[in-house]
């Protein structure tokens, strides 16, 4: 446990420079895009006169050069102040924290779906590599993996919302429904079915492949042969010896994919009108709202770092041979 604690502290401390780089990189990226927040604002309201334009630039602190602005931003960041969103006219922290739960919910559910279904079907395939069942499932997985998430989302909406009317076409919950408690949870769950499927199925296919290929490889390993020679067979052999070891690359991938999944949620959140971080990032770029974009990026970076940390800890649990790299 002490080892885990040390790992945690070291990783979190090591993450600080990463966050600094994310902030500087994001700032320069948006700085390179022509037009600023005032241009975006004026386009939205249909224009304004010169005096108004100048007053706005001064008020939003956009009249200085990029370097003083970056320095001011980093200075505020050190005091844990994420700044002011010009697009929402509210503090960045309030805006991003409001959206974070929806994104975490979407990502968490999608990961759960991908991981559970992916490894389950992967085990089904990997239990008997080359069997007709394996071939059929693997083919289906590749087909799903080839589909763009947004397209899958639109197809699911047309099928299940527009034609069948089984599930809502978008949103995180029924608008102004007045529901509370379990009714509200059930309502949110209903709303999450299609977006979670759109986001999760693609990764499910990936995990299925990883699991299946890993298992196919393991069947040829000496320790599996030895176990067989000892007379072990059936589910016990498949699960304890083969599947457990094949799970390691899947878990590794899980950590790596958490960043990609955040990216995928930009598209899925837009298609399904879910107010989450991904959609917020897209809006921040469109409105040239630098503090907001950096707020989203920093928060996303923190999420990815924490997920990877959790993956490392899980790794150690799954495979006792893997130490934490601290000499243990």
């Amino acid at each position, binding site marked *: 446990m002490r080892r885990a604690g040390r790992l945690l502290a070291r990783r979190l401390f090591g993450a600080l420079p990463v966050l600094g780089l994310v902030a500087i990189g994001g700032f320069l990226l948006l700085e390179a*895009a022509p037009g600023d927040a005032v*241009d975006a604002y004026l*386009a939205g309201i249909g*224009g304004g006169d010169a005096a108004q334009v100048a007053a706005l630039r001064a008020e939003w602190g956009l009249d200085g050069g990029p370097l003083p602005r970056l320095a001011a931003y980093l200075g505020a960041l050190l005091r844990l102040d994420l700044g002011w969103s010009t697009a929402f006219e509210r503090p960045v922290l309030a805006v991003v924290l409001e959206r974070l739960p929806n994104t975490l919910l979407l990502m968490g559910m999608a990961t759960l779906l991908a991981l559970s279904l992916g490894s389950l079907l992967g085990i089904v395939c990997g239990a008997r590599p080359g069997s007709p069942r394996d071939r059929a499932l693997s083919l289906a997985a590749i087909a799903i993996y080839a589909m763009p998430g947004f397209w899958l989302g639109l197809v699911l909406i047309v099928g299940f919302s*527009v034609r069948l009317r089984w599930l809502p076409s978008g949103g995180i919950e029924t*608008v102004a429904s007045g529901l509370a408690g379990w009714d509200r949870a059930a309502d949110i769950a209903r709303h999450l079915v299609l977006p979670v499927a759109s986001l999760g199925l693609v990764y499910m296919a990936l995990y299925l492949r990883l699991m299946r290929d890993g298992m196919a490889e393991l069947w040829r390993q000496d320790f599996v042969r030895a176990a067989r020679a000892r007379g072990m067979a059936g589910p016990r052999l498949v699960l304890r010896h083969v599947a457990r070891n094949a799970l390691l690359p899947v878990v590794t991938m899980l950590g790596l994919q958490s960043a990609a999944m955040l990216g995928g949620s930009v598209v899925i959140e837009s298609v399904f*009108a879910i*107010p989450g971080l991904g959609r917020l990032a897209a809006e921040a770029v*469109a409105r040239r709202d630098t503090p907001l974009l950096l707020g989203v990026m920093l928060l996303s970076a923190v999420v990815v770092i924490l997920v990877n940390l959790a993956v490392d800890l899980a790794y150690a649990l799954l495979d006792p041979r893997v130490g934490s790299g601290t000499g243990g």
Partner: protein
Amino acid sequence: MPAFPLPRRALLAAAAALPLLPRTAGAQGIQHGGRLTVAADSEPPNLNPAIIASNGVFFVASKVIEPLAEASYDGSDGLAPRLATGWTAAADGRSITFALRPGVAWHDGQKFTAADVAFSALEVWKKHQNLGRAVFRDLEAVQTPDAHTAVFRFAVPTPAQLIRNALPALTAVLPKHLYADTDIMKNPANRKLVGTGPFRFAETRPGEFTRLVRNAEYWQQDRPYLNEIVYRVLPDRAAAANALEAGEIQLAAFSAVPLADLDRIAKVPGLKIYSNGYEALTYQLVVEINHRRKELADVRVRRAVAHAIDRDFVVRTIFRGYATTSQGPVPKSDRVFHAPDLAGYGFNPARANALLDEAGYPRGSDGVRFRLRLLPAPFFNETRQFGDYLRQALAVVGIDATIVSNDTPAHIKAVYTDHDFDITVATPVYRGDPAISTTILFQSGLPAGVPFSNQYGYVNPEVDSLIKQAAATIDDAERVRLYRAFQKLVVDDVALINVAEFSFITVARDTVANVSNNPRWAVSNWADTGFTG
């Protein structure tokens, strides 16, 4: 039972007493009650229509905060009274007297009086509003001889016609008791609106929805019909059509359902398509021209470009018929100011080629006379599609246009601050009077960095003097004459190329009644909108 003359109220009361009739049935079988859920694509953080006169704000705010008068298909001067019941202008153009509606209360219970109008005009419209800062620039004082009279006094003679035309969009009245002595731009009531309108602001969830509820104390008897209006945020282009089909929303305005999807949506039973109700917010498809560019400084080249465009094709193909062709800067929907006799530039590639030859730009060995950079505004699908069309149309007459695609802020900066373009595709909005929305596109001497204004390097002293003269002309007929002369001049010059006038499409469930029944319907108060069953 006497057949008539029984007062209407008594009839309604009698109907209400009969148990078998629906108690709340109104005119045309509209029921009281119900929630209307509509699609919204943006959520402006500042919803104050007195500060930000834009359609995105009005779409929500017009139900809560009312102007002095609203646009109307059949009212005199094209207006229907709202918070003002009448208006008379002094003969010298120095004052306009508004009679205000008595017995109106703000949503917080305070009484609406002339002091609210005086405060809104002097402190908000004149100082802060994007459009009002120009139109009310010379407003000197607003006198309030009694609680229901407001006299606007101007420093210089001001056309009453201009002020009348400004009433629907520029005169949203704010409650003085919540705004006086505060930072108006940061007032919390800019989010949680307080007005006199048929609906009260209830709540908003960022990224999800905004909800308005019925104002039971509304000054108009028996209105509104609806209990609630919910604006559901649907950012995806396909979302509104899907949500309509799935029955999750009942109405999508401002072409939230793309023109490309209309054919499919038209076949869905229970959905109805309205192409009217936006006449007072006509958008104009325009080619902006950088007159600083050597080739384009020659009027013959500009005329050639105008002749190269097949307007009928554009309307038929890009707008699928939901638009009309245009030759001048005032749209046909403004029957007062539109100059009907403009010759304009018909589709004539042969003439265009001849003009370009004459101007001294022969085709090179590759068939190209010269090259241009074309920046289509990214605001609408149609602006991008027209950009593609324009490139092809120009190729026919030997002009090679390269399309430069930008997102909105980049486009605004490139065109209106950096002047880094040769031609563009733009969509200026016509706002009911040339002085509000149109002259700014042609008047010279504006500083760089003002979006949607003459950043084109176009200078014609005659045009400038006409604009100045019309601004100080108080006689209605003379004003119209001057603005028609102005239109002729800028069309002869080809300062810009007007291609088409388009408005938007509303798609609604057929159970929603009184949709699109005034020329600014989507941004009007919806007091008479309701469900029939």
